[in-house]
């Protein structure tokens, strides 16, 4: 174990997987000088046949990943901000997510797409969406949501080694956060939730960027005498329904925290799963703490108002625990 920054854990995973398998290539806009930080140093180590800047043409970058994978590469495509996933959405939704089924299993697509999501930096609506629910609905792509440096490293390595299109969603503006990261060849299987805190009074399910404020909230709740169980699904596709259902059953009181816009959010889906499969054990309404159905405003105070924070989580979890 060693303390590392989120962004460095990602960088390390990229270097390790590129060293491990010469078929791994990385491309995207400004990956060479690493505008997002995570691809820093790769060009010097691996050269332009392994990592290269592309023109600005997201619609083609996503489709190219399908072709390059079909031709034998393991593709890592960096899309910068998750809003640009929308720009390259056609090949994601109509090709990547469907080609394997449509070809009767012939197409194998070892593709990892990295994108940063979420607000907090006053980047305004076109640079702050948490655009993963639309990916989750597609069916044919994995969606992973690393909340810590360790998960970032372990999930990215699994994604790159895997044989399916996987969206690796970076929590925006969190690159500097530190955490313990296991040494060596550390991978994390998809579809395994992580219990971050044990508690008997209320179960808080926190997704990606919301794990941090949720753990903060759990501390505050404890001070108020409420023991919160905190669980992080870590991957939305595949989804560890069993673990989430068990966690819900444990307290009968559930709050799902998600930085996505509320309607058809990951929180909505998880709440729906629990309202079905954990119904018998529920003691209180299943609560969602999400971004309301607006785009994130630019002004810091207005943006802050929309993004779930520890206080909001505390308020809702307290209600739920007392309901």
């Amino acid at each position, binding site marked *: 174990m060693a303390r590392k920054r989120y962004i460095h854990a990602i960088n390390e995973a990229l270097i390790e997987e590129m060293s491990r398998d010469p078929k791994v*290539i990385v491309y995207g806009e400004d990956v060479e000088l690493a505008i997002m930080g995570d691809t820093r140093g790769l060009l010097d180590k691996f050269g332009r046949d392994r990592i290269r800047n592309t023109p600005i043409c997201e619609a*083609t970058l996503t*489709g*190219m990943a399908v072709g390059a994978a079909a031709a034998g*590469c393991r593709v890592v495509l960096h899309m910068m901000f998750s809003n640009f996933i929308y720009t390259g959405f056609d090949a994601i939704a*109509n090709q990547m997510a469907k080609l394997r089924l*449509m*070809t*009767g299993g*012939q197409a194998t697509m070892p593709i990892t797409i990295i994108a940063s999501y979420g607000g907090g930096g006053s980047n305004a609506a076109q640079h702050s969406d948490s655009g993963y629910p639309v990916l989750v609905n597609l069916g044919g792509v994995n969606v992973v949501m690393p909340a810590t440096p360790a998960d970032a490293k372990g999930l990215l390595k699994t994604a790159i080694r895997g044989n399916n299109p996987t969206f690796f969603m970076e929590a925006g503006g969190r690159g500097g956060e530190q955490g313990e990261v296991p040494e060596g060849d550390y991978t994390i299987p998809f579809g395994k939730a992580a219990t971050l805190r044990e508690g008997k009074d209320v179960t808080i399910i926190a997704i990606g960027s919301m794990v941090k404020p949720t753990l903060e909230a759990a501390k505050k709740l404890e001070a108020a005498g409420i023991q919160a169980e905190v669980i992080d699904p870590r991957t939305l596709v595949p989804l560890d329904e069993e673990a989430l259902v068990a966690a819900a059953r444990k307290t009968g009181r559930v709050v799902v925290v998600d930085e996505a816009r509320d309607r058809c959010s990951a929180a909505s889906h998880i709440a729906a799963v629990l309202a079905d499969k954990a119904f018998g054990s529920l003691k209180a309404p299943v609560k969602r703490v999400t971004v309301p159905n607006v785009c994130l405003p630019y002004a810091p105070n207005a943006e802050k108002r929309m993004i779930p924070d520890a206080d909001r989580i505390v308020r809702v979890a307290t209600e739920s625990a007392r309901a």
Partner: protein
Amino acid sequence: MASSEPTKAQLLALYERMLLIRRMEERLRADAAAGNLPGAVHLYIGQEAIATGVCARLRESDMITSTHRGHGHFLAKGGDPKAMMAEIWGKKTGICKGMGGSMHVADFSKGILGANGIVGGGFAIATGAALASKLTHDERIAVAFFGDGAANQGVFMESLNVSSLWKLPLVLVCEHNQFCEFTPSANVTSGEIADRARAFKIPTRVVDGNDVVAVWQAAGEAVEHARRGEGPSFIEARTYRIQGHLEAEALFLAGGKYREEAEIEEWRKRDPLDRTRERLAAAGVASSELQGLDERILRTVGEAVQFAKDSEPADPELAFDLMFAGQRA
């Protein structure tokens, strides 16, 4: 020698492949009319020379992307008639296990990366395949077949830019059949499509798409260019869509009209198969020889249909295992 004349044997092989495509689709047309086929069928009749002339220049390991009108590309690149027919009939023995159908026939083992229901969907896939070939130095090339309508999708320009920039082993083949569904291409296309490729300094050839030799020659040059690592080429093959946009088009048109019978007749006179037969006669191939060929191919088609009919329907439960590799949906 790319632009040299084909030998008699080569010409015969080209003709045979075109004939296979034609007879397969005539049968599909009949079965569509008879209501034997589940989904929509877009026929390639009249355009056979293009897929055939181009694919005759490719190795099995080379890759192609195709369109919604993809039977010809599939067969020209060496796809199995039985497996294609069974696919279109929605059977478990289909090349895609009945999961894709006419618009998605594919055989990755033969470099056929798939017909595609998204107009323009093949550009980026072919470009990515060409990128992989270049980066892994495996000497394969990629060919993107697409229609004149697809040439209005921005992804066309994006692929021109990327492939030219990186000198990718890519051949872009525009099949200009003069229509986008019920819209004459002239009404939706500004300027010459070939000029779009020229703007990226990509070698460009405009050929008679109903003359298999002309296509074969242009493709030969383009393929060698790519194989030498000199980058992409663009070929525009001028042709005409003889059939409706899709079978049962009349149902959609409900009396509406977008072209004249006379125009179709004009183009029937330039049928690529007839023209190849003339070339064969000139090369001294006896009509009896062609007679035998025709019978052989009709047999192949008949067997393909029989195979499709005898096969079990698709297995619905399989879908859950086909969404992901080694992961259940």
